[in-house]
Protein backbone atom coordinates (compact mmCIF):
# COMPACT_ATOMS: atom_id res chain seq x y z
CA UNK A 1 0.00 0.00 0.00
CA UNK A 2 1.22 3.49 -0.85
CA UNK A 3 2.20 5.77 2.02
CA UNK A 4 0.18 8.91 2.67
CA UNK A 5 3.46 10.79 3.09
CA UNK A 6 5.30 11.91 -0.07
CA UNK A 7 8.97 10.84 -0.55
CA UNK A 8 10.97 12.44 2.26
CA UNK A 9 14.11 13.41 0.28
CA UNK A 10 12.08 14.98 -2.54
CA UNK A 11 10.09 16.96 0.02
CA UNK A 12 13.30 18.07 1.72
CA UNK A 13 14.70 19.32 -1.59
CA UNK A 14 11.47 21.17 -2.32
CA UNK A 15 11.37 22.81 1.10
CA UNK A 16 14.98 23.92 0.86
CA UNK A 17 15.16 25.08 -2.77
CA UNK A 18 11.57 26.26 -3.42
CA UNK A 19 10.54 27.97 -0.22
CA UNK A 20 6.97 28.49 -1.39
CA UNK A 21 4.34 26.88 0.85
CA UNK A 22 1.84 27.13 -2.03
CA UNK A 23 3.93 24.96 -4.36
CA UNK A 24 4.90 22.31 -1.80
CA UNK A 25 1.31 22.19 -0.52
CA UNK A 26 -0.07 21.78 -4.06
CA UNK A 27 2.32 18.90 -4.73
CA UNK A 28 1.33 17.15 -1.47
CA UNK A 29 -2.36 17.65 -2.29
CA UNK A 30 -1.93 16.17 -5.77
CA UNK A 31 0.19 13.29 -4.45
CA UNK A 32 -2.41 12.37 -1.85
CA UNK A 33 -5.37 12.54 -4.23
CA UNK A 34 -4.17 11.00 -7.47
CA UNK A 35 -0.44 10.77 -8.06
CA UNK A 36 2.47 8.36 -7.55
CA UNK A 37 5.88 8.68 -5.87
CA UNK A 38 7.52 8.79 -9.31
CA UNK A 39 5.29 11.72 -10.28
CA UNK A 40 6.17 13.51 -7.03
CA UNK A 41 9.90 12.99 -7.62
CA UNK A 42 9.60 14.26 -11.20
CA UNK A 43 7.72 17.36 -10.08
CA UNK A 44 10.22 18.01 -7.27
CA UNK A 45 13.21 17.74 -9.63
CA UNK A 46 11.58 20.08 -12.18
CA UNK A 47 10.65 22.57 -9.46
CA UNK A 48 14.13 22.52 -7.89
CA UNK A 49 15.79 23.06 -11.28
CA UNK A 50 13.36 25.67 -12.62
CA UNK A 51 12.21 27.71 -9.64
CA UNK A 52 15.46 29.11 -8.12
CA UNK A 53 16.95 29.90 -11.55
CA UNK A 54 13.72 31.62 -12.58
CA UNK A 55 13.96 33.75 -9.42
CA UNK A 56 17.56 34.69 -10.25
CA UNK A 57 16.54 35.76 -13.77
CA UNK A 58 13.50 37.65 -12.48
CA UNK A 59 15.45 39.46 -9.77
CA UNK A 60 18.70 40.26 -11.54
CA UNK A 61 19.54 43.27 -9.41
CA UNK A 62 18.94 41.37 -6.21
CA UNK A 63 21.18 38.59 -7.56
CA UNK A 64 23.85 41.19 -8.37
CA UNK A 65 23.53 42.56 -4.83
CA UNK A 66 23.88 39.04 -3.41
CA UNK A 67 27.05 38.49 -5.43
CA UNK A 68 28.54 41.83 -4.34
CA UNK A 69 27.57 41.18 -0.70
CA UNK A 70 29.11 37.70 -0.79
CA UNK A 71 32.26 39.01 -2.43
CA UNK A 72 32.64 41.82 0.14
CA UNK A 73 32.18 39.39 3.04
CA UNK A 74 34.72 37.04 1.48
CA UNK A 75 37.16 39.88 0.80
CA UNK A 76 36.95 41.44 4.27
CA UNK A 77 37.10 38.18 6.23
CA UNK A 78 39.17 35.89 4.01
CA UNK A 79 41.52 38.17 2.12
CA UNK A 80 42.19 40.58 4.99
CA UNK A 81 41.33 39.13 8.44
CA UNK A 82 41.93 35.40 7.85
CA UNK A 83 45.03 35.75 5.68
CA UNK A 84 46.38 39.01 7.08
CA UNK A 85 45.68 38.60 10.81
CA UNK A 86 44.74 35.02 11.73
CA UNK A 87 47.18 33.14 9.48
CA UNK A 88 50.34 34.94 10.75
CA UNK A 89 49.23 34.26 14.35
CA UNK A 90 48.64 30.59 13.59
CA UNK A 91 52.15 30.46 12.11
CA UNK A 92 53.56 31.79 15.40
CA UNK A 93 51.95 28.94 17.38
CA UNK A 94 54.47 26.49 15.91
CA UNK A 95 51.93 23.84 14.85
CA UNK A 96 52.93 21.18 12.36
CA UNK A 97 51.99 21.78 8.73
CA UNK A 98 49.01 19.37 8.64
CA UNK A 99 47.51 20.76 11.84
CA UNK A 100 48.04 24.31 10.64
CA UNK A 101 46.38 23.56 7.33
CA UNK A 102 43.45 21.78 9.01
CA UNK A 103 42.89 24.71 11.42
CA UNK A 104 43.07 27.20 8.60
CA UNK A 105 40.58 25.23 6.51
CA UNK A 106 38.14 24.83 9.40
CA UNK A 107 38.19 28.62 9.82
CA UNK A 108 37.86 29.21 6.07
CA UNK A 109 34.95 26.75 5.78
CA UNK A 110 33.25 28.37 8.79
CA UNK A 111 33.61 31.67 6.93
CA UNK A 112 31.91 30.22 3.83
CA UNK A 113 29.14 28.78 6.01
CA UNK A 114 28.66 32.20 7.59
CA UNK A 115 28.79 33.86 4.18
CA UNK A 116 25.91 31.69 2.91
CA UNK A 117 23.98 32.40 6.10
CA UNK A 118 24.38 36.19 5.78
CA UNK A 119 23.50 36.28 2.06
CA UNK A 120 20.35 34.25 2.80
CA UNK A 121 19.39 36.53 5.71
CA UNK A 122 19.83 39.69 3.63
CA UNK A 123 17.89 38.44 0.60
CA UNK A 124 14.65 37.06 1.96
CA UNK A 125 12.26 35.83 0.57
CA UNK A 126 14.58 34.73 -2.26
CA UNK A 127 17.29 33.43 0.08
CA UNK A 128 18.09 30.09 -1.56
CA UNK A 129 18.00 31.51 -5.10
CA UNK A 130 20.35 34.36 -4.12
CA UNK A 131 22.82 32.03 -2.35
CA UNK A 132 22.69 29.91 -5.51
CA UNK A 133 23.45 33.03 -7.59
CA UNK A 134 26.57 33.65 -5.49
CA UNK A 135 27.51 29.95 -5.71
CA UNK A 136 27.26 30.15 -9.53
CA UNK A 137 29.49 33.21 -9.50
CA UNK A 138 31.95 31.38 -7.22
CA UNK A 139 32.03 28.49 -9.72
CA UNK A 140 32.79 30.89 -12.57
CA UNK A 141 35.46 32.62 -10.43
CA UNK A 142 37.01 29.21 -9.72
CA UNK A 143 37.71 28.54 -13.39
CA UNK A 144 40.97 30.59 -13.72
CA UNK A 145 42.71 29.10 -10.64
CA UNK A 146 41.65 25.53 -11.53
CA UNK A 147 42.76 26.16 -15.12
CA UNK A 148 46.12 27.40 -13.76
CA UNK A 149 46.61 24.18 -11.79
CA UNK A 150 45.70 22.10 -14.86
CA UNK A 151 48.30 24.02 -16.90
CA UNK A 152 50.91 23.48 -14.16
CA UNK A 153 50.05 19.81 -14.16
CA UNK A 154 50.44 19.61 -17.94
CA UNK A 155 53.87 21.30 -17.90
CA UNK A 156 54.93 18.96 -15.09
CA UNK A 157 55.46 21.57 -12.35
CA UNK A 158 52.59 20.09 -10.30
CA UNK A 159 51.13 16.59 -10.04
CA UNK A 160 47.55 15.28 -10.06
CA UNK A 161 47.21 15.58 -6.29
CA UNK A 162 47.42 19.40 -6.61
CA UNK A 163 44.43 19.39 -8.94
CA UNK A 164 42.52 16.98 -6.70
CA UNK A 165 43.26 19.23 -3.71
CA UNK A 166 42.21 22.40 -5.56
CA UNK A 167 38.93 20.89 -6.80
CA UNK A 168 38.10 19.28 -3.41
CA UNK A 169 38.75 22.53 -1.55
CA UNK A 170 36.54 24.50 -3.95
CA UNK A 171 33.71 21.94 -3.91
CA UNK A 172 33.94 22.04 -0.11
CA UNK A 173 33.59 25.81 -0.03
CA UNK A 174 30.53 25.64 -2.31
CA UNK A 175 28.93 22.99 -0.11
CA UNK A 176 29.57 25.10 2.98
CA UNK A 177 28.16 28.18 1.26
CA UNK A 178 24.96 26.35 0.25
CA UNK A 179 24.70 24.74 3.70
CA UNK A 180 24.89 28.18 5.33
CA UNK A 181 22.09 29.43 3.08
CA UNK A 182 19.96 26.35 3.63
CA UNK A 183 20.43 26.48 7.41
CA UNK A 184 19.33 30.10 7.41
CA UNK A 185 16.18 29.41 5.34
CA UNK A 186 15.45 26.29 7.41
CA UNK A 187 15.46 28.38 10.60
CA UNK A 188 13.13 30.93 8.98
CA UNK A 189 10.79 28.16 7.81
CA UNK A 190 10.62 26.64 11.30
CA UNK A 191 9.65 30.06 12.67
CA UNK A 192 6.97 30.49 9.95
CA UNK A 193 5.59 26.97 10.53
CA UNK A 194 5.32 27.68 14.27
CA UNK A 195 3.40 30.89 13.64
CA UNK A 196 1.18 29.27 10.97
CA UNK A 197 0.69 26.23 13.24
CA UNK A 198 -0.51 28.41 16.12
CA UNK A 199 -2.98 30.19 13.83
CA UNK A 200 -4.15 26.92 12.39
CA UNK A 201 -4.82 25.41 15.82
CA UNK A 202 -6.85 28.46 16.79
CA UNK A 203 -8.88 28.00 13.61
CA UNK A 204 -9.57 30.82 11.18
CA UNK A 205 -12.93 31.47 9.49
CA UNK A 206 -11.69 30.07 6.16
CA UNK A 207 -10.53 26.78 7.71
CA UNK A 208 -13.73 26.49 9.70
CA UNK A 209 -15.77 27.00 6.51
CA UNK A 210 -13.73 24.36 4.68
CA UNK A 211 -14.44 21.84 7.47
Amino acid sequence: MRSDQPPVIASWLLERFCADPGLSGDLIEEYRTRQSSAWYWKQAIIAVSVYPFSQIVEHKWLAARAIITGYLIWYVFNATILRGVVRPRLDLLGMDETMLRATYFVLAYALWLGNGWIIAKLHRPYSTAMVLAYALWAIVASVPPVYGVVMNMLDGSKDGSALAWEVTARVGTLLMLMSGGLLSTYRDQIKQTRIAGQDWRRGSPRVAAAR
Partner: protein
Amino acid sequence: MAKEYLGNLELMVLLSLIRVGDNAYGVPISHEIEQRTGRDVALGSVYAALDRLERKGYVTSMLGDPTPERGGRAKRYFQITAKGVKEVRDAQRMLTNMWRNLSVLQGELA
Protein backbone atom coordinates in the same frame (compact mmCIF):
# COMPACT_ATOMS: atom_id res chain seq x y z
CA MET B 1 11.21 50.65 -19.86
CA ALA B 2 10.73 48.16 -22.71
CA LYS B 3 7.39 46.39 -22.84
CA GLU B 4 7.59 42.78 -21.69
CA TYR B 5 5.49 40.46 -23.83
CA LEU B 6 3.77 37.35 -22.57
CA GLY B 7 5.35 33.98 -23.16
CA ASN B 8 3.31 30.98 -24.28
CA LEU B 9 3.03 29.42 -20.80
CA GLU B 10 2.37 32.82 -19.21
CA LEU B 11 -0.55 33.40 -21.59
CA MET B 12 -1.96 29.92 -20.88
CA VAL B 13 -1.64 30.52 -17.13
CA LEU B 14 -3.46 33.86 -17.38
CA LEU B 15 -6.27 32.33 -19.45
CA SER B 16 -6.61 29.46 -16.96
CA LEU B 17 -6.68 31.95 -14.12
CA ILE B 18 -9.62 33.73 -15.79
CA ARG B 19 -11.40 30.40 -16.37
CA VAL B 20 -10.92 29.11 -12.82
CA GLY B 21 -11.97 32.44 -11.30
CA ASP B 22 -12.13 32.60 -7.50
CA ASN B 23 -10.14 30.05 -5.51
CA ALA B 24 -7.54 29.81 -8.28
CA TYR B 25 -4.38 28.20 -6.95
CA GLY B 26 -1.69 25.99 -8.47
CA VAL B 27 -3.64 22.71 -8.71
CA PRO B 28 -6.80 23.93 -10.54
CA ILE B 29 -4.70 26.20 -12.77
CA SER B 30 -2.47 23.31 -13.92
CA HIS B 31 -5.52 21.00 -14.34
CA GLU B 32 -7.20 23.62 -16.51
CA ILE B 33 -4.13 23.88 -18.75
CA GLU B 34 -3.84 20.08 -19.00
CA GLN B 35 -7.54 19.63 -19.85
CA ARG B 36 -7.68 22.42 -22.42
CA THR B 37 -4.35 21.82 -24.16
CA GLY B 38 -3.69 18.14 -23.56
CA ARG B 39 -0.20 19.08 -22.38
CA ASP B 40 1.36 18.02 -19.10
CA VAL B 41 2.62 21.00 -17.15
CA ALA B 42 4.87 20.82 -14.11
CA LEU B 43 3.58 22.71 -11.09
CA GLY B 44 7.06 24.20 -10.61
CA SER B 45 6.89 25.73 -14.10
CA VAL B 46 3.39 27.07 -13.42
CA TYR B 47 4.59 28.71 -10.20
CA ALA B 48 7.65 30.16 -11.93
CA ALA B 49 5.31 31.68 -14.57
CA LEU B 50 2.95 32.98 -11.88
CA ASP B 51 5.88 34.60 -10.06
CA ARG B 52 6.93 36.37 -13.28
CA LEU B 53 3.36 37.52 -13.90
CA GLU B 54 3.11 38.83 -10.35
CA ARG B 55 6.32 40.78 -10.76
CA LYS B 56 4.96 42.30 -14.00
CA GLY B 57 1.79 43.29 -12.12
CA TYR B 58 -0.56 40.99 -14.10
CA VAL B 59 -1.59 38.88 -11.12
CA THR B 60 -1.74 39.24 -7.35
CA SER B 61 -1.47 36.47 -4.80
CA MET B 62 -2.37 35.88 -1.18
CA LEU B 63 -1.76 32.99 1.18
CA GLY B 64 -4.74 31.10 2.56
CA ASP B 65 -4.74 29.03 5.70
CA PRO B 66 -2.71 25.85 6.21
CA THR B 67 -4.81 22.68 5.93
CA PRO B 68 -4.06 19.09 7.05
CA GLU B 69 -4.68 17.63 3.53
CA ARG B 70 -1.74 19.70 2.34
CA GLY B 71 0.60 18.70 5.15
CA GLY B 72 -0.07 21.97 6.98
CA ARG B 73 0.90 24.11 3.97
CA ALA B 74 -1.17 27.09 2.91
CA LYS B 75 -2.77 27.52 -0.50
CA ARG B 76 -1.50 30.47 -2.53
CA TYR B 77 -4.48 32.06 -4.25
CA PHE B 78 -3.98 34.03 -7.44
CA GLN B 79 -6.11 36.69 -9.04
CA ILE B 80 -5.69 38.43 -12.40
CA THR B 81 -5.41 42.23 -12.27
CA ALA B 82 -6.94 44.79 -14.67
CA LYS B 83 -3.47 45.18 -16.19
CA GLY B 84 -3.34 41.41 -16.71
CA VAL B 85 -6.74 41.36 -18.43
CA LYS B 86 -5.60 44.17 -20.74
CA GLU B 87 -2.42 42.23 -21.56
CA VAL B 88 -4.45 39.12 -22.46
CA ARG B 89 -6.67 41.23 -24.76
CA ASP B 90 -3.59 42.72 -26.43
CA ALA B 91 -2.09 39.25 -26.92
CA GLN B 92 -5.35 38.00 -28.43
CA ARG B 93 -5.49 40.98 -30.83
CA MET B 94 -1.87 40.52 -31.81
CA LEU B 95 -2.16 36.77 -32.42
CA THR B 96 -5.45 37.14 -34.34
CA ASN B 97 -3.77 39.68 -36.66
CA MET B 98 -0.89 37.29 -37.22
CA TRP B 99 -3.28 34.44 -38.02
CA ARG B 100 -5.46 36.39 -40.43
CA ASN B 101 -5.16 35.62 -44.18
CA LEU B 102 -2.48 32.96 -43.90
CA SER B 103 -2.98 31.05 -47.12
CA VAL B 104 -0.85 28.09 -46.00
CA LEU B 105 -3.00 27.49 -42.92
CA GLN B 106 -6.22 28.08 -44.86
CA GLY B 107 -5.11 25.43 -47.36
CA GLU B 108 -4.52 22.99 -44.52
CA LEU B 109 -7.95 23.65 -43.10
CA ALA B 110 -9.68 23.17 -46.45
